[in-house]
């Protein structure tokens, strides 16, 4: 196989070499436990503190509002479960959307089934954007939390976060956003946007896997999710993943510093992708909003064919992409996100997500679209649904 074209950066990214570089000394040299008293451990503590500052800066937050976790899923679980516990005397109602990541949706189902929560799952429009009037209507005196993702992981649609923040504030309701896909890709300022809690995961922005954070605005009375030691201001137990945290700090800093230039380029390549596909391949549909869209997200549905077959054939050419079809992730149902924007099952099945990185070139895009045309034509010729 020749060159690989990696177009699955929404699934995970390459850890940046400078990130690995920054982590390395914390494995074998400055390996002390940051909670320890001796001088040797203060180096670990400083590493953690610096990273906390880098991340806080990237969000316009305070250092002491950043709590490290093991990733986006833990952050989402924590935000929902422990907020529910802390505020359930005030009310048991949570508002979220139909297009959240499973880390939110399955947590909500758990809270419904096991803990007596009432959850409203908001519809989205055909572009995958939450309808603000429906959000307003869903609010009850029992509502304690609104959780709406910043940007969707499948179709890249960016939500009206500022407006949601304002609505939440007006009603005195906490606002959590799953920014796992957005952090590092679009500018975020928690104060300006009225965000009370925010989840993020390191490996989505060229940081390491297995590290995340939850931003918790000062004053939010969330409980612990992982109980135990006194780490993270007694809110999240467990010996700190020092190398992971240090790497995450560098990755966040890097992502924010290079954001403008990097995403400008990604948008150019993304738009080239979209334009060529829409023009050159028949029976195709772009999923997600055309402009309120992550800079690196391309998601299209091809009628009459199925996603996994497409992926396997792209893989033959060294092209790594992913599919709206969730066959491979243990569930056979088509993507809940694609169904929520109104795609029929069989079209949802023929979806392809390509998420670019700063390394993706125009030439890559052209190569991929050329191959895609062949593959789609071939699979259609094999499809019982397609009559030409």
């Amino acid at each position, binding site marked *: 196989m020749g060159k690989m074209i990696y177009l699955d950066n929404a699934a995970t990214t390459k850890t940046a070499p400078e990130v690995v570089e920054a982590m390395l000394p914390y494995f074998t040299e400055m390996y002390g436990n940051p909670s320890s008293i001796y001088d040797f451990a203060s180096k670990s503590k400083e590493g953690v503190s610096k990273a906390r500052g880098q991340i806080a800066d990237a969000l316009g937050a305070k250092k002491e509002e950043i709590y490290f976790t093991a990733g986006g899923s833990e952050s989402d679980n924590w935000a929902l479960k422990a907020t529910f516990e802390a505020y359930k005397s005030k009310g048991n109602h949570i508002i979220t959307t139909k297009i959240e990541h499973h880390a939110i949706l399955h947590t909500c189902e758990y809270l419904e089934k096991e803990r007596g929560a009432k959850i409203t799952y908001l519809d989205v429009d055909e572009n995958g954007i939450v309808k603000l009037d429906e959000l307003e209507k869903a609010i009850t005196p029992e509502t304690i939390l609104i959780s709406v993702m910043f940007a969707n992981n499948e179709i890249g649609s960016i939500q009206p976060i500022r407006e949601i923040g304002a609505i939440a504030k007006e009603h005195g309701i906490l606002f959590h956003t799953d920014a796992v896909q957005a952090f590092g890709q679009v500018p975020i300022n928690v104060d300006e946007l009225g965000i009370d809690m925010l989840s993020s995961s390191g490996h989505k922005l060229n940081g390491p896997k297995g590290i995340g954070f939850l931003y918790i605005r000062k004053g939010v009375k969330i409980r612990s999710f992982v109980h135990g030691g006194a780490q993270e201001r007694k809110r999240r137990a467990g010996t700190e993943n020092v190398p992971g945290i240090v790497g995450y700090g560098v990755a966040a800093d890097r992502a924010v510093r290079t954001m403008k230039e990097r995403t400008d380029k990604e948008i150019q390549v993304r738009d080239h992708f979209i334009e060529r596909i829409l023009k050159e391949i028949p029976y195709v549909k772009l999923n997600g909003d055309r402009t309120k869209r992550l800079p690196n997200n391309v998601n299209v549905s091809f009628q009459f064919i199925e996603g996994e*077959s497409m992926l396997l054939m792209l893989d033959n050419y060294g092209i790594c992409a992913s599919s709206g079809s969730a066959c*491979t992730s243990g569930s*056979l149902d088509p993507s809940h996100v694609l169904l929520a924007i109104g795609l029929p*099952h*069989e079209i949802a099945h023929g979806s392809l997500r390509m998420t670019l990185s700063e390394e993706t070139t125009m030439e890559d895009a052209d190569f991929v679209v050329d191959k895609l045309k062949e593959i789609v034509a071939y699979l259609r010729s094999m*499809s*019982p649904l397609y009559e030409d």
Partner: protein
Amino acid sequence: MYSEKVMDHFQHPRNVGEIENASGVGTVGNAKCGDIMRIFLDIDDETHIIRDCKFKTFGCGAAVATSSMATEMVKGKTIEEAMKLTNKAVMEALDGLPPVKVHCSLLAEEAVHAALWDYAQKHHIEIEGLKKPKSDIHEGEEAEEEEY
């Protein structure tokens, strides 16, 4: 994820296409994953031997590979022999499938049955053990265990 045999049959599927004026055509869909398979049979009315077999599939890699393998396996067989083709045999011939993909092979078994049913209907014959196929198949249980 897939065995080499599966990948071979996926990448070079045998017997893709349609048979014009086929003796029997069967189309089945999996209600769970939404995938669809259509099988065309050319059957010798005297000997009941399946002279040719082709397929069209809208489905995952496993669906394509099992279609390909199943058509290979029924070709040259008699109807009675073809009736005995199980999804298990197809899977074995492909060196196995991941647990979540077992249902895809059921699609192939059912599509062959459906095509035979069509043939039987057209010729007003009865084939032992063959029942009217449902157009939608459901597996009893989703395979829970994943391979590690």
